[in-house]
């Protein structure tokens, strides 16, 4: 198995924040400003060829009081090389924005809308940055850990 962490670390020593590998699952934590550069590289470099963005989601570390508060997580897969890579970017609550990957993988479009809907992380350059699951009248972002579990915002009927 290719050591993907090593490849990326050697190519972009300034952009990699940290990395770890567990049970063959390799993860690279990038600096926010390096996201587009690295993503473009791993998509087009023939030996890596990550042609599929399998998942894009976020994690809220509010309860752990971690700063920066959010992780945006990208799961990449190569259908020709049959290898996987997880890339994370840390996002603070104040500058809650990362670059959009819609121009690289079209599947990022709805994933990024979901992350915006659920976590309130914005994506710079997204063609249609609005809610995908919740209704437009909904206030707040329900998967943030400080969204009260019993808060209700019905469109019709009483709050219950």
């Amino acid at each position, binding site marked *: 198995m290719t050591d993907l962490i090593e490849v990326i670390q050697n190519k972009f020593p300034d952009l990699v924040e940290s990395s770890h590998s567990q049970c063959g699952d390799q993860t690279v934590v990038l600096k926010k400003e390096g996201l587009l550069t690295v993503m473009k590289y791993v998509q087009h470099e023939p030996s890596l060829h990550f042609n599929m963005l399998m998942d894009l989601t976020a994690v809220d570390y509010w309860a752990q009081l971690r700063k920066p508060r959010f992780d945006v997580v990208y799961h990449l897969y190569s259908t020709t090389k049959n290898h996987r890579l997880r890339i994370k970017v840390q996002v603070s609550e104040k500058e809650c924005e990362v670059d959009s990957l819609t121009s690289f993988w079209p599947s990022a479009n709805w994933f990024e809308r979901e992350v915006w809907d659920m976590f309130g992380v914005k994506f710079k350059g997204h063609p249609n940055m609005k809610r995908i*699951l*919740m*209704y437009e009248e909904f206030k707040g972002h*329900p998967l943030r850990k400080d*969204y009260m*579990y*019993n*808060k*209700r*915002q*019905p*469109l*019709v*009927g*009483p709050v*219950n």
Partner: protein
Amino acid sequence: MELTAPQKENIQKIEHSNLFTPGFFSSKVSEVVGWARKNSIFQFPMVTACCGMEYMSVACSHYDIDRFGAGFPRFSPRQSDVLFVVGTISHKMAPVMKRIYEQMTEPKWVVAFGVCTCTGGFYDNYATVQGIDTIIPVDVYIPGCPPRPETVIDGLIKLQEKIEHSGFESRPGK
């Protein structure tokens, strides 16, 4: 046309038999209406979640709710009598369900199928309506996750009893 002798004889026999002896059949119109309505339930299945599988199994030949006159789902609210809300209703779906209910013509009834429609079930969260009776009136609650076909049939029979005794009113007291 002239009748033959044996034909005349036959007619006389029938006229003198018990078949045409004068008598009475008495009933109230409301009872007849109730009887007719309960045996021709046109349902609108509003299927939103996994309960739909169980609904299909009840509707198909094995359990066969056609035996109760309820085997004919209509997919227009204007042609249906009973709204079957089958599955979780989210807050985003709630206005749609309310509108479907309002589009149905009187008399109309509502069945909450499955625990999610009854109370919200285990979806005690930001997205789910905590019981559709907070939005529209419900006549019969069928609990279960999902309900067994026997439970559904029991609920249907209870609905029939309710329809039978509600007379001209679709909803007593309305």
